[in-house]
């Protein structure tokens, strides 16, 4: 936790996918000074990094390719790295989505070992809407949100190799990982969109900014 008076400087990785307006406004509302960046060099001076994302896994990994090394270095240096939705899935090792698309070699960042799998075929996908969070272990990112609802839009979900990497679950057919984190605790992600999850989402963004 920082003791500086200045606002935490957060870099949102802009790799050309999706609308980053809401996540930027949400982080600003949470007290951060936000920079949208398409240049990996900008990550060096950041207090924290957000990896957003919508769309397909392999396309996301391709587009985020130039950031791969810098993101891994930031994580190893212990800096907070927050993946949102597809950005969370990219923290894992691989995804069934890429395999289904015949792109089995698409590799994630492997910062939270595991793979992303598709929801059971009897369930309507995407899983879309507000679902309840069940916090399963302590982590600063989920402070104050146990039992609250968050907004999800996704067809795949994370299955970390280490069940202990799951921080919170939600139920859709079965329980699935809604929030994951690495052992050290500085790399974490939410399957839902905090920037679309009302007060609960803003609380999570504030929790993140506090960590930066």
């Amino acid at each position: 936790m920082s003791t500086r008076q200045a606002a935490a400087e957060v870099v949102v990785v802009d790799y050309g996918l999706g609308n980053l307006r809401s996540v930027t406004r949400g982080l600003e509302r949470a007290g951060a000074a936000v920079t949208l960046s398409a240049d990996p060099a900008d990550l060096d001076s950041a207090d924290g990094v957000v990896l957003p994302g919508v769309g397909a896994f392999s396309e996301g990994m391709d587009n985020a390719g130039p950031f791969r090394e810098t993101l891994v270095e930031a994580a190893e240096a212990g800096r907070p790295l927050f993946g949102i939705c597809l950005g969370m899935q990219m923290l894992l090792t691989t995804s069934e989505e890429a395999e289904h698309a015949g792109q089995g070699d698409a590799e994630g960042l492997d910062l939270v070992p595991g793979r992303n799998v598709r929801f059971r075929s009897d369930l309507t996908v995407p899983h879309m809407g507000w679902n309840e969070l069940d916090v399963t272990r302590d982590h600063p990112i989920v402070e104050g949100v146990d039992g609250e609802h968050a907004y999800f839009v996704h067809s795949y979900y994370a299955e970390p190799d280490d069940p202990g990497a799951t921080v919170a679950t939600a139920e859709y057919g079965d329980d699935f990982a809604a929030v994951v984190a690495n052992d050290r605790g500085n790399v974490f992600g939410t399957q839902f969109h905090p920037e679309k999850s009302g007060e609960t989402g803003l609380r999570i963004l504030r929790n993140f900014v506090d960590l930066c």
Partner: protein
Amino acid sequence: MLTKRIIPCIDVDLDEDGKAAVYTGVNFEDLAYTGDPVEMAKKYNEAGADEFVFLDITASAEGRETMLDTVSAVADEVFIPLTVGGGIRTREDVKETLRAGADKVSVNTGALDRPELITEGAESFGSQCIVISVDARRRFDEEGEHYVAVDGESCWFECTVKGGREGTGVDVVSWASEAEDRGAGELFVNSIDADGTKDGYDIPLTKAVCDTVSTPVIASSGCGGPEDASEVFTEAGADAALAASIFHFDEYSIRAVKEYLDDRGVPVRL
């Protein structure tokens, strides 16, 4: 568990000074000025709305620019999903609306005229942001494809355009199914018959669509209070209920509607 959603909707037009303003139909009479779009969006964001729908009713080229600016101003204040509809006819319209800050676009006439727009939108931006909206009207003749019994008579539902003034001959249930196959992520079902009545949603219509598709269905038109929302969830199987005037004129709060639903075992976000 997924909750049922309560969604306030604003109709936005340009006022005399060319500024975006919310108007609401009152008892079938003229549209009444209801407020500033950004202020209303903020109010509903704070009141516990699950999503917010913004419909551009100007349907004019000059209004479009102002509307996109207003969408951006709303998006900056609303930390819940934002759907924007009205006059979206091309892939480019979809793109610029999403870019302005919408999470989803609602397409009606543009998709009926050219169904490929659904496919293009879904492939380019993802199904989750393509909402297909229909303005359904009951017809009691022999020209439909899917019939349901309504008050002892057999009726089908026709897709209309221009606010119900023009029929298309397209069966709503068949169209819903095609829209889903083409990649629509949600269906937004309005009823010309129920609109403005406050007598409740068109249950046979909503149920006919819900029974046909697995895509989430947002029921619209006719909401007069919490019991109507309850009925459309439990009787018709809707995933979300949209309402305008009961919220705009403070007849009910969003919280009051949700508490009513919660008391009856309908899962909601409180």
